[in-house]
């Protein structure tokens, strides 16, 4: 009963928003547009994005501006949803939001490392919103990475990064970034304790799946492109996955070639993703997999947190797909090749 009170309003809202998402036909229409301008025009005139793009002058709009608008719309939709929640769920939504804040924080840190100007960094930040736990302007005002990390004092990130601030290099930066990703997963894990059994399981599964996919991607790339030590590979994985146990992950880190890799995950749902040894296909399959997974949750329509989480995942994929389509059009990539970059099979 409690869950109905808690989730019925938000779930109806979500249902309405899902109805507004791009349909297969609309995707095909966008893919078949002949150039950048006509694609954006189609997006503006024939999809639910018309409201968002109403005041934009299409002729003058740069691709990156459009991306920014899409990202920001995502974030603002997200921020508004906080109003539907209270108590622990409010906290959970805030913590799930950390993911985007962390992306921005990485951007700030990397930008400072590369000596980019504050304006330049600012233009790439997407998650500035009422849910922020850090003060963007304050961080942007610093001159280098060390100061930025010092400026994080008092936030949840500081204890994790304090130790890493001593070594600011290309490699050190990598450590900082992975550590930040860990902050996200650790925070969710500690919040999980406060949820009831049903929702705990839901969040655990969704986040676990995300962790599984990230782990697989990391190990795959570490193996094929960067030849990273197995021990190191393992240390950078995220634990508490959904279908992959710690032992499987460890075995995956120590495999000799891709055939073994595939053998190990053969019986998991992820086998489909790594069917072919081609990173573009893998990425496409990964998106498709996620979309299918979350669409299933949405169809099940349970009165718990799953619908909200799934919507934001699916919406995220849609944003990525649109950006990808627009990029393809901008650089005149053929539709046959372009289809490989979005979560859609014709």
């Amino acid at each position: 009963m409690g869950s109905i009170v808690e989730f019925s309003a938000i779930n109806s809202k979500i249902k309405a928003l899902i109805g507004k998402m791009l349909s297969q036909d609309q995707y095909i229409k966008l893919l078949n547009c002949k150039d950048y301008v006509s694609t954006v025009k189609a997006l503006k005139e024939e999809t639910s994005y018309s409201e968002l793009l109403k005041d934009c002058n299409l002729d003058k709009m740069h691709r990156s501006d459009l991306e920014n608008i899409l990202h920001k719309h995502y974030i603002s939709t997200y921020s508004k949803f906080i109003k539907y929640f209270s108590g622990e769920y409010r906290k959970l939504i805030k913590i799930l939001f950390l993911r985007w804040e962390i992306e921005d924080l990485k951007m700030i840190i990397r930008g400072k490392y590369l000596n980019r100007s504050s304006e330049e960094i600012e233009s790439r930040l997407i998650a500035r919103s009422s849910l922020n736990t850090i003060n963007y302007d304050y961080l942007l005002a610093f001159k280098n990475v060390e100061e930025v990390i010092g400026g994080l004092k008092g936030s949840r990130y500081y204890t994790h990064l304090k130790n890493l601030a001593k070594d600011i290099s290309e490699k050190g930066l990598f450590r900082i970034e992975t550590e930040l990703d860990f902050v996200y997963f650790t925070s969710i894990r500690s919040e999980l304790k406060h949820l009831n059994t049903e929702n705990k399981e839901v969040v655990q599964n969704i986040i676990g799946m995300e962790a599984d996919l990230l782990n697989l991607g990391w190990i795959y790339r570490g193996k094929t492109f960067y030849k990273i030590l197995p021990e190191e590979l393992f240390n950078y994985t995220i634990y508490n996955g959904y279908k992959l146990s710690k032992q499987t992950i460890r075995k995956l880190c120590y495999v000799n070639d891709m055939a073994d890799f595939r053998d190990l995950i053969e019986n998991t749902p992820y086998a489909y993703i790594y069917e072919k040894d081609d990173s573009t296909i893998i990425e496409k399959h990964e998106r498709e997999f996620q979309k299918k997974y979350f669409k299933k949750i949405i169809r099940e329509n349970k009165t718990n947190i799953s619908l909200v989480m799934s919507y934001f995942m699916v919406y995220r994929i849609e944003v990525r797909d649109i950006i990808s389509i627009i990029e393809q059009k901008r650089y005149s990539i053929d539709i046959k090749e372009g289809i490989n970059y979005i979560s859609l099979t014709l």
Partner: protein
Amino acid sequence: MHMINLVGVMSDFDELTKMLAIGGYMQPVNALQEINSSDFVLKTSNDNIEALMDVNYIRPYVSDKDYNISLKHITILEEAQNLIGIKGEYIKETIFDFDTSQKELSKVYDEYMVMNKKIEELQEKEEYLKNTYEALGFLKNVTVPMEEFTATENFRVDLYKVPQQNMVKLKANYENIPSIIKSVYTQDDFVIFLSFTPLLLLTETERIFKSANCEKILVPDHYIGLPKDVAVIIRSEINEIQKSMIKIQVELNVFLRANYRSIKNITNSYELEQKSEEIKKSAACTNEFFYLSGWIPRSFMESLDTLLLSFDERILIIRKKANEITNKAITPPTMILNNRLFKPFESMVLMYGVPSYDEIDPTIFLAITYTIMFGAMFGDAGQGLVILLAGFLLKNKARRVNLGGVLETLGISSIVFGFLYGSVFGSETVINALLIRPMENINDVLIGAIIFGCGFLIVGFILGITNSLRRKDIERGLFGKEGLAGFMFYIGVIILIVSIIYKKPLLPIAIWIIYFIFCLLLILLKQPLANIIKGNKILFEEGAKDYFIESGFEVVETLLSMFSNTLSFIRVGAFALNHVGLFVAFASMASMTKNGTASVLILILGNIVIIALEGLIVFIQGLRLQYYELFSKYYEGAGASFEPVKVKFK
């Protein structure tokens, strides 16, 4: 309200805006918009020639100051002060020059940071020693001196601190790590472990540890002796550090106290700086001149003139009264001024809306009528006193000035009516009624309430007509149902009813009927009539058919609403009865108990219920009469309040 445009040289800009912010005289308006409208006119004369030439290069003012970090520093200092509980008087000093305040800040902050850093370093060292101490606790049974196993030839001993979740990963992978790992101390989120690594494999192992975000915390090789002896040494070192930490903390406190004034001063200066930026943001400028526009209430004009005197006529000023402004897009804000007695009632008006600039502020009318109505509904000398006291407490203790003030006035009114009704804490036997006992004269009370209501409505009509005419809204003011036509109709009905009651017919019925139909016709035809008077060619703005349908219903509504609005005031009398009735119920309950204490308790409870519950209901019903029956007659509340940029010094 005056629209003020100021032009001056850039060098005076900072000082002027700061002085304006201190005075809190002005609500800025976007200057570029003003310049584009025709209200910002500089006379062509030799004095103004440069400013005039410069207008061609005009652009919005853009701030180049970045004080995000400074503000954070100030917060840090303030927090440090709060932490040790320094509180002092308000200081009204500020530094006008931004550079000086910046320098002052960095001076204080740097000094603070030096000490703070010392404390932090000591804290870190303390933690480090504590960790070592814990690790030695693990080795306490080892009888080999420290130097022997830290200086082994082929092995290296290290102590690492690692986050809990990474320890899990290390554990899962023990067999692949070329080192012996023994965790020696576990806290909530981290683990400390000792590692024994063959020197040959040191680089590889370190890489693995690094990837798990392990922090190397100690190489205890400068200690000599048995581990348990070393532990004692470390314990004393920890004590040492704690002592020096306290010493520095004391120094820091002294420093913060000594610099109380200057920290406050800096805080104020930055506050001022931000407020002046707020004014500047709306300004326009060229390389040499600035152009500033804003609203200033008439009462502040003199202060503005004295302020400008200090600039030796370097600043040009153009002033226009609110009604002279040609740009209709901007509406002048309203500054509400009321004396102390009526001020608390402002909040009740503002809940409905801010009066527009040319509207009469309804506060006084509301305050008087509301107070009378409340008293009439809740007339009780004793309970009124309770409300008065509650208001007094709220005002002075809980700092709820508005609510407290309103309750005080209502309490007094309730006391006065209590004497008129002869009621003290519900009991009607203690004092004699000066005017009337509601329960014994039910009809008189109800009719009296309606008569009062008619009076209020008539005043409401007059106010409404004045408002409309002030706004030159002929349609509403003369022919509307809240206007003169409606008013005439209402008065007519009242006179007719009175004459019927007293059986002294003033006019024949036929004339009355003609009169009423005439008034209703005026209301029906208000738009075309207004357009004829104004000389407009179009009679109906949205087509005659639509107009008559809408207007026809309006006439019906007029009849209904006048009837219901008047009858609505019956509740004033009804609640006066209700008040007595409620108490009668409690009193009979008390007498039924036949037990002294119990009946006293019931009476007390009854009084509490009456004050809390009926008080609230009466409060709301009174407000309803104001908002619905009276405000709809005369008040629109579509204005914006005057919000000057003003510094609040800390």
